[in-house]
């Protein structure tokens, strides 16, 4: 049975990891090469933006995030002058860039936003003088979280960049891949495209991964959008609809693990591709997995060892829901506690609908937007062997004596995903399995006994 708890439902207080709107925007804009981000705001927020921008680097592109130098004086007197100068330095390629970019995106922090900084006005002035496209996004941290920030950027792209289109529409746009909540998302999205194409599904655009500014014009050539987060984005959905591109609203589980991948791919292939091709692809991929694992002593040992263990999962709703199903369906692991984080009620509900089918065969608790404290206490009470979360919660779970695996969150920070191998798809299940093996080892290796009972040369010898 699935027991749903909402420990923070009657309060605004939160204690969870949710970067603000400008970070969501920068995740979108930083996948578009030949553009530059200008960040207008305080340095602490800017540092976070620069860190997360790094997620787009592996097998991707480098899009700078340049600060305008917003100091205390600008907080009081306004910072338009510094913004203007930075935009001109970039648009005229005076410094920072060697050639003028195709577009400059402006993001901002709370301070200039509360002060009422007219970033749109400054953008218009510099764009008129320089001829460089400048898109100003009002995306301060208090405007919402990552999903809202992504939505704000997407709306700006549809409003100010994308042209109307009347031609043939085919395939799907994959929207905001970082909202999946996987720390391996750059390689996951790359493989997701491969999977879809193998199933005869045209991927029209990934917003954003390895695009040029000109590629954005392809947006309306898709038949539909697939949002990779679970939070609703009504403004984006409405604008996209006006351009003739609908947005899927299905309760699709993300394709982490074999069972989830089969369900996800066949569902999409039925609508946008070729089911036969999808089935053939799945069979071929499974054949490759079997070549590694069948009759493999280590695999048999570990698959049996993992079975029946207790786990907790926490993270962004799409990832946490998919990993919970993966652990239970594919590995026969009993997930006892699931912490779902989401910016919108819709995101939580969608994840719960994805988890609901487990209800008959597994007893577990779902915590909606729990604090870290509530999460850890629930995991302790359930006596879990290990937790899957993100690097930020590793010290929390380890302090409770619970082994921890950081698969969720973002590529940054201290996630060592240097091997470009996905976690999702049939192929990704090899890596997922390897990772889970390691954390279960961490949970059960008797390291303290090794230290305390270690042989010491000469110990116990008289004289």
């Amino acid at each position, binding site marked *: 049975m699935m027991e749903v708890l909402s420990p923070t439902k009657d*309060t*605004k*207080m*939160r*204690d969870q*990891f*949710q*970067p*603000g*709107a*400008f*970070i969501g925007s920068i995740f979108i804009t930083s996948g578009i090469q030949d553009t530059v981000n200008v960040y207008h705001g*305080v*340095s*602490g*927020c*800017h*540092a*976070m933006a620069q*860190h*997360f921008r790094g997620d787009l680097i592996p097998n991707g592109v480098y899009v700078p995030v*340049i*600060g*305008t*130098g*917003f*100091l*205390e*004086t*600008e*907080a009081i007197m306004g910072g338009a002058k*510094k913004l203007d*100068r*930075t935009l001109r*330095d970039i648009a005229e390629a005076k*410094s*920072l860039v060697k050639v003028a970019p195709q577009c400059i995106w402006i993001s901002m922090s*709370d*301070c200039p*936003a*509360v002060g009422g900084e007219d970033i749109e006005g400054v953008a218009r002035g510099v764009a008129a003088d320089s001829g460089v496209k400048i898109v100003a996004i009002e995306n*301060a*941290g*208090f*405007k*919402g*979280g990552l999903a809202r920030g992504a939505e704000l950027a997407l709306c700006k792209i549809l409003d100010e960049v994308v042209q109307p289109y009347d031609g043939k529409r085919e395939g799907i746009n994959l929207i905001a891949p970082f909202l999946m909540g996987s720390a391996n998302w750059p390689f996951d999205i790359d493989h997701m495209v491969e999977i879809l194409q193998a199933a005869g599904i045209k991927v029209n655009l990934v917003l954003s991964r390895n695009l040029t500014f000109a590629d954005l014009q392809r947006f309306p050539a898709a038949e539909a959008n697939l949002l990779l987060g679970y939070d609703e984005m009504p403004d984006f959905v409405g604008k996209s609809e006006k351009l003739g591109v609908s947005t899927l609203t299905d309760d699709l589980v993300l394709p982490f693990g074999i069972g989830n991948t089969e369900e996800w791919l066949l569902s999409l292939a039925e609508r946008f591709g070729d089911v036969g091709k999808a089935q053939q692809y799945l069979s071929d991929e499974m054949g490759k997995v079997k070549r590694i694992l069948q009759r493999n002593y280590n695999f048999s040992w570990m698959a049996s060892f993992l079975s029946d263990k207790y786990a907790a999962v926490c993270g962004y709703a799409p990832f946490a829901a998919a990993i919970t199903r993966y652990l239970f369906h594919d590995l026969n692991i009993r997930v006892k506690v699931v912490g779902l984080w989401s910016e919108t009620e819709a995101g939580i509900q969608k994840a719960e609908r994805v988890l609901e089918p487990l209800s008959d065969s597994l007893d577990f608790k779902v915590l909606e937007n729990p*604090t*870290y*404290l509530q999460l850890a206490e629930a995991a302790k009470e359930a006596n879990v062997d290990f937790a899957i979360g993100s*690097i*930020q*919660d*590793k*010290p*929390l779970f380890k*302090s409770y004596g619970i082994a921890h695996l950081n698969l969720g969150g973002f590529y*940054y*920070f*201290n996630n060592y995903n240097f091997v470009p191998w996905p976690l999702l798809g049939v192929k990704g299940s090899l890596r997922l399995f390897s990772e889970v093996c390691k954390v279960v080892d961490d949970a059960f290796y008797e390291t303290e006994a090794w230290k305390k009972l270690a042989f010491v040369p000469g110990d116990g010898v008289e004289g």
Partner: protein
Amino acid sequence: MPEIDTEEFNELCPGYEGVWCRYLWTTTYFQQFFRDVVIVTHGPLSCVAAVKNFKQTHYSLHSALPFAHSPCTNMDENAVIMGGTDILADTLRRVDKEYRPALIIITDTCASYMIHDDVDAVIAEIEPDVKAKIVYTPSPGFAGVQCGKAVEAMGPLVASLMDAPSEIDQEGVNVLGLYYDTRFTEAEGRKHGGNTEAYVHLIEGIGLKVHRIMNAGDYDYLRTAPEARVNTIHTAMWGYPVAQAMEEQFGTPWLKRQLPMGLEGIRNWVMDLARFMNREEEAERFVKVEEEKLASLFEETKKWVEGKVLLVECSRNSQAKYGEMLAYARLGQELGMKPYVYCLHPVEFKSQKDDMIAVFEVEGLNPPVLIGPYPYHQPVNVEDVMADLGVDGDQCLYIYDDVFPYAKSGSFDPSNVARYTTSSQMKRVKGSSFLGVGYAGTAVTYRGMIEAFQAARRKSKPTFFGRVWSSTPFEFQSAKQKEGPVS
């Protein structure tokens, strides 16, 4: 140099924005360092994420600090317009009930500060209902963005949490100015040395007692700090403001030397303390014994490094603590090296007055600092610095303080130019302070320098890191490049 944040300065250094912000510094300074304290953030969740994303997590993972529970009022657009005091009151009550901390510190952010939410009124309203002591530390991100200014502002806040001493421990010595470290030691299970062991060794070595090492411990540990006879300093930037505030508030005297690294640096630090505590004879004996233990290593190191150039590369990180890099410069100078400091942003150089006092006035150091405009924090290439100085790789030791150190196989790599990690982020050594203070820390630094020169003798097989950054990652490629185009 013009005044900071003036028209003239902005022209000279466009895009200067400091490092982190006052909210981040305040949160991290108070939160994880005190075990039973919970920080409540009055602002958007994004501000909490900005701390947890890197700083808090890094400090937990690599500096033995506990996980930081970070309840937040989750301020949204509505709260920015209508005010968020009701949410703050609710949050404080919940934190008191669910987390049960000894002390709650409220930090505010740009948004809540700019709308003038009356935090003090909220505290007055709920105080009768809660068990924890509640303190408000104003910390809007934009205030005093240059790090030195933000940290300066925290001194009185730390002191305000302390109680007036009922009696003074005449042998008690505090060490102030630790940042992201705890009192948790290797003996207790830490995997590498913090700084505690080094100071225990120096202070107990002359027959005195360590009273408090700050910031660390818990609320009781903090509030009883003024019972020490004297405050000493680990780093000026973090220590001076607290020491000054304690002197004003409790009359606690303090000594100004920082970062006891290198034989001379340690001797001066210890003797200052000894003179104040009237322990000069014990101190002379102690220092002599310790110096004798290190004498042969000192001489061996000197053989390797004397006459060489010490390239001291600062970065964004040095905005928070250039005193550390200059302490390595001092250590190098004692070994006969010629230090050159570069990539130290002029704004921080000017605004961090405590580091300036510690290095120039107290120590009397004056190494050449190559000042540039560094627009938008763009760093200077070390190979350009070497060209300007007219030195080659064999004549240099390169030290750096953060990520993205320079490397390029074929020309500048640990395989052909000696480099040593002095970053307090990265330097982790078993049995030594990660800042390299004390005798053990100094010994580790000496050995590290020798090993760096040894490694650079090979002149082949560059590192993976250097190859990744190079346009000629394989040796056959760099050999061809050196040969030049075939005519």
